[in-house]
């Protein structure tokens, strides 16, 4: 919780360094959010792998929570990315932004994850299928990125520079602080959501046992 405040502090500190204009501030959120989303998807896939490996049921909930969180962060990436596009280039969307397009594809993929889970009955079968799908997702990330890079020659001839602004020392520090803050925020949300879901499951079990 304290560290979430740390992330907020970065927001206040950042204006000091933003000599490209206050709108540049969104960068400090957009990229960390994106990286956190990747981390969540990676964690979800890892937990999926653990499920397939060990067969322990708890990994299913862990994997699902991670993917859920990753999707939320992914959506935020799209939103912040859209805002950035608006402030930088005057449009709400830009096909030239590789990051943005990649997240759009991933967004579609992981939304389908939830549709898939919803269509399956609770149990070991659903856990396994979800885990396999999460693994496909994490493989899709680099493959899609490569594809989108290739697609630029077909679809959009102009490539926008993705490296972002050249960061001076203090800006870099702010960026790292935001990144760490975002990771910790994600970790906190993850732990919270997981505990909540576990309690739900336990409650349902107890209720069932009583009837």
């Amino acid at each position: 919780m304290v560290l979430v405040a740390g992330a907020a502090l970065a927001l206040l500190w950042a204006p000091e360094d933003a000599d490209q204009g206050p709108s540049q501030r969104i960068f400090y959120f957009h990229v960390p959010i994106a990286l956190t989303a990747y981390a969540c998807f990676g964690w979800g896939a890892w937990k999926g792998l653990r499920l397939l490996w060990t067969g322990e049921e708890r990994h299913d909930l862990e994997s699902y929570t991670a993917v859920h969180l990753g999707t939320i962060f992914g959506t935020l990436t799209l939103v912040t990315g859209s805002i950035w596009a608006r402030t930088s280039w005057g449009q709400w969307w830009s096909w030239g932004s590789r990051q943005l397009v990649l997240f759009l594809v991933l967004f579609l993929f992981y939304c389908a994850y939830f549709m898939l889970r919803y269509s399956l009955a609770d149990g070991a079968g659903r856990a396994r299928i979800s885990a396999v799908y999460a693994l496909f997702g994490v493989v899709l990330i680099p493959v899609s990125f490569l594809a989108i890079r290739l697609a630029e020659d077909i679809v959009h001839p102009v490539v926008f520079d993705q490296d972002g602004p050249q960061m001076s020392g203090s800006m870099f520090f702010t960026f790292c602080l935001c990144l760490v803050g975002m990771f910790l925020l994600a970790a906190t949300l993850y732990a919270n959501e997981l505990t909540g879901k576990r309690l739900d499951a336990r409650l349902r079990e107890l209720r069932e046992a009583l009837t």
Partner: protein
Amino acid sequence: MAAVVARAPLVHARGLEKRFGPKRVLRGLDLDVAAGSFVVVTGANGSGKTTLLRLVAGLAAPSRGLLVVRGERAQLGFVAHDPLVYRELSALENLDLYGRLYRIPERRVRIGMLLERFGLWDARAERVETYSRGMQQRLALCRALLHDPTLLVLDEPYAALDDEGAALLDRELAERRSHATLLLATHDAARTAQLETDRLVLAA
């Protein structure tokens, strides 16, 4: 010096539980099926007979508890509610497929023998969708027995059979008793009462 070791049971379950979402179908079940025995499982609808048999066959995984089934998939024969055959193919084509998958030596001979034994020889080249329910169930039996399994799991096999088919199954089970382990779920326990060695009654 030879030590006499009690043969480990073919199927061993302790505290077996199966949940479908919040609903528990099997709870805290203990079971031991010795090799060569004939265990009949009875119980009302919804008591978990099918679930138990599917667990033993390996088609479902336990939610909790221990389940050990000795033997390979190649030694297991399973008869389900559905005949598990392709309706658009003929009996011959279906059994040929399973014969290949189970790597049965001289499968054509064996297929012919089984079809003959279950009275399906004349209809062998016709599509399964033209068969009566009784004939389909008999084909299911052929499918399950094709590879001469040592563990035979049957889920209410008499349900869809006509009198002739039921008599054939009776004969088949009696023959198999000597060299296979049988696990059979049924409503009509009287039918198998003579052959059975143990009975398991499931409560809903």
